[in-house]
């Protein structure tokens, strides 16, 4: 019962229900602003959704031709579940262990499972919203094409709501175990981060292992798969077995549908029950005292003098502040580094599973070296776009933004510090570029061109994202995850940055096709990036002083 009371409160707080109701009554302008923003997000994502739905439609036609249209649903459930499993890790860590309200909730007469259960449902709703753009188009495509009846739609919606339960319960249980172990150690932050990356690595390897086709038996394997009516569905569901129940529940029809639906429901209930059971036992072990910070020994006067002797420029001081915050907040670090870390893991998987990188390298060798180097630069630019370093830069300051408002450092200098910091994050992808340089036998100068080009190509994403975040920073978050994952600016940043890169791609492609030479391509792409960056920077520093004055926390 108390779990439900707490859940009601968590929903009001986390989804701004109370605030919206209050705005509607007392500040209709702000209410419309909040609703309008949500609509804007949906509208800005709609072109991508449309393309995705069209892809699904084509996939359905192919799958139906093979007599296995259920693969559409199975692959969507697998994709959604894997997304939940991976992306929930930091959600769970943040909501379960770093929410500010925990210090208020723990002293209340609530059982650990009450708090855990209520917070689990908050993450569940976030996950449902996250998978909606992937799941609902597939449900729609399959339903419309197969002329499904009412039961299909009802079951489809139920399964939609239940899909994240098992993977979320699994990542929650992992996190409960990790945090209770980590809490025994002094190096909590480091161990949390190592745990997160180990989980991610293990998941990728397990997935590849489960879905790999035995070497040398590819033809037989494919024949078997295509001969079996549910062959493709079964193959896909090997990556995540409950997906088979979900897909069969929606596509088999009759009693088999019902039976599979009940299996799926049963697995979800079992996952939730297991989580609550484990949570009741170990949740507080990781939570109580989890935010304790070890005191260091006192510094001697000499040490103190040494530390305080070197002075930094304000720009470096700002960049360093951001880096320290990043390094000391595992959630920021994981979110900023996950993409850069995942790529070497993905590249390493074929080495371990016997496939090798030869086919990929062979393909890349057919591309001229100059284009390869520009590809390396583009990779750095994309990493800068995907790491939410710039798009959450002001938001991450949260309630402490007042410090930035009162310090005697001009907004422009602070922005330069933030650009510098974001560039340092983009530089973390240099080892991957170096790996590419090694495998593709680039000369030193080609490698340097790639890195320098990467810096230039990172700037449009960084500066446009800083601009977006400064226009409407999200400063009132109550757990650090919200500053990144529940920050609309991060989505807008990716959409706007992606659009800028698309423009550069179109211009570069045009230049290359017209001349067939590398130099015009470089000039257009890198010159275009520099112009776009300068433009965004001009706007940013123009509006910054006023924004710094106006923002009230």
């Amino acid at each position, binding site marked *: 019962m*108390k779990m439900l*009371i*707490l859940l009601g*409160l968590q929903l*009001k*707080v986390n989804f*701004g229900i*109370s*605030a919206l109701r*209050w705005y509607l009554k*007392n500040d209709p302008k702000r209410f419309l602003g909040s609703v309008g923003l949500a609509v804007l997000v949906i509208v800005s994502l709609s072109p991508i959704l449309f393309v995705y739905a069209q892809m699904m439609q084509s996939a359905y036609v192919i799958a139906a031709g093979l007599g296995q249209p259920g693969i559409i649903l199975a692959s969507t459930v697998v994709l959604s579940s894997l997304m939940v499993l991976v992306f929930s890790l930091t959600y769970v860590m943040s909501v379960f262990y770093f929410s*500010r*309200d925990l*210090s*208020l909730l*723990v*002293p*209340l*007469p*609530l*059982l650990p499972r009450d708090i855990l259960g209520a917070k689990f449902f908050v993450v569940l709703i976030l996950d449902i919203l996250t998978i909606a753009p992937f799941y609902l188009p597939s449900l729609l495509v399959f339903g419309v094409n197969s002329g499904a009846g009412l039961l299909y739609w009802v079951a489809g919606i139920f399964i939609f709501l239940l899909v994240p339960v098992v993977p979320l319960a699994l990542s929650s249980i992992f996190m409960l175990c990790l945090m209770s172990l980590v809490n025994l150690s*002094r190096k909590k932050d480091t161990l949390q981060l190592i745990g997160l990356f180990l989980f991610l690595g293990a998941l990728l390897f397990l997935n590849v292992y489960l879905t790999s086709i035995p070497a040398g038996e590819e033809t037989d394997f494919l024949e078997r798969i295509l001969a079996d009516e549910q062959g493709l569905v079964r193959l896909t569901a090997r990556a995540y077995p409950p997906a088979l129940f979900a897909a069969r529940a929606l596509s088999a029809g009759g009693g088999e549908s019902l039976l599979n639906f009940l299996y799926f429901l049963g697995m979800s209930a079992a996952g939730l029950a297991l989580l609550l059971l484990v949570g009741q036992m170990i949740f507080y072990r990781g939570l*109580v*005292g989890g935010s*304790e910070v*070890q*005191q*260091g*020994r006192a510094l001697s006067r000499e040490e103190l003098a040494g530390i305080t002797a070197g002075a930094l420029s304000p720009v470096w001081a700002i960049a360093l502040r951001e880096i320290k915050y990043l390094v000391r907040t595992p959630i920021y670090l994981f979110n900023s580094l996950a993409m850069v870390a995942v790529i070497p893991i993905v590249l390493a998987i074929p080495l371990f599973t016997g496939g090798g990188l030869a086919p990929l390298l062979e393909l890349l060798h057919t591309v001229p070296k100059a284009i390869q180097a520009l590809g390396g630069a583009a990779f750095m630019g994309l990493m800068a776009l995907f790491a939410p370093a710039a798009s959450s830069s002001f938001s991450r300051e949260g309630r402490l933004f007042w410090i930035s408002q009162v310090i005697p450092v001009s907004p422009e200098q602070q922005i330069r510090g933030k650009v510098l910091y974001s560039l340092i994050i983009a530089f973390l992808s240099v080892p991957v570029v170096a790996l590419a340089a090694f495998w593709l036998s680039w000369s030193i100068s080609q490698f340097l061109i790639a890195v320098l080009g990467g810096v230039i190509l990172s700037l449009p994403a960084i500066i446009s994202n800083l601009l977006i975040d400064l226009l409407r920073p999200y400063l*009132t978050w*109550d757990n650090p995850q919200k500053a990144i994952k529940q920050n609309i600016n991060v989505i807008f940043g990716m959409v706007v940055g992606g659009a800028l890169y698309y423009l550069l791609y179109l211009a570069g492609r045009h230049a290359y096709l017209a001349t067939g030479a590398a130099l015009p391509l470089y000039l257009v792409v890198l010159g275009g990036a520099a112009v776009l960056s300068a433009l965004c920077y001009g706007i940013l520093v123009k509006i910054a002083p006023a924004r710094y004055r106006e923002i009230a926390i």
Partner: protein
Amino acid sequence: MIEIANLSKSYLKGAVKAVDNLNLKVKAGEIFGFLGPNGAGKTTTIKMMVGLLKPDSGSITINGFDISEQPLAVKNSISYVPESPEIYEKLTGIEYLNFLGDVYSVPGAARKEKIPALLDLFGLSGVVGDLIQSYSHGMRQKIVLVGALLHEPEVYILDEPMVGLDPRSSNNLKNYLRESCDRGKTVFFSTHILEVAERLCDRIGIIHQGRLIACGTLEELRGLAESKETLEHIFLELTEK
């Protein structure tokens, strides 16, 4: 009512002792002031009392329940006011109070009677429908206090409860706590405002570098120090040693 025995909490594998073998008893009906310089171990002790930190050793018994063994029974019989009023900003004041009423199982009728009285006491009636986000620091402290007083627990554990309060609210809170203790409740609070401790507390404990260096009535503390004037003089003298 509160019994702390051999309580210790340390960091750096024991090198830094935040709380060092603390022993303390607070009787029912008593207002106990917990004083100490910054970093002395006051908040650490309080956090261990309410289950926010786990002690390295020792025990804490409140209302006959051990916080390690029966945390829920302890939490049902206490209320806690944290050092800084970090609460749900996206709720209105009344939504926050109703939430606390729900988790402490305060019946509707009792809430109807109690909430308006407490809101009046702290001058919050006019803003209770507003989002907490719009509250000043003092107003947030007041709404936290109203929430803490709502379920009339046996023991109040308050970490710097007067910080941010205006003189009238501060005075009202002191009167309320005095009346509660006269009815048999217990108050354990930390403060830096020595005049408050001097005037309000039945007994005072002074913690310094994790150790309880003095504990007793004001008269008893005067006996421990050469300076017999005010609590401020006694405090300064004892914490200098």
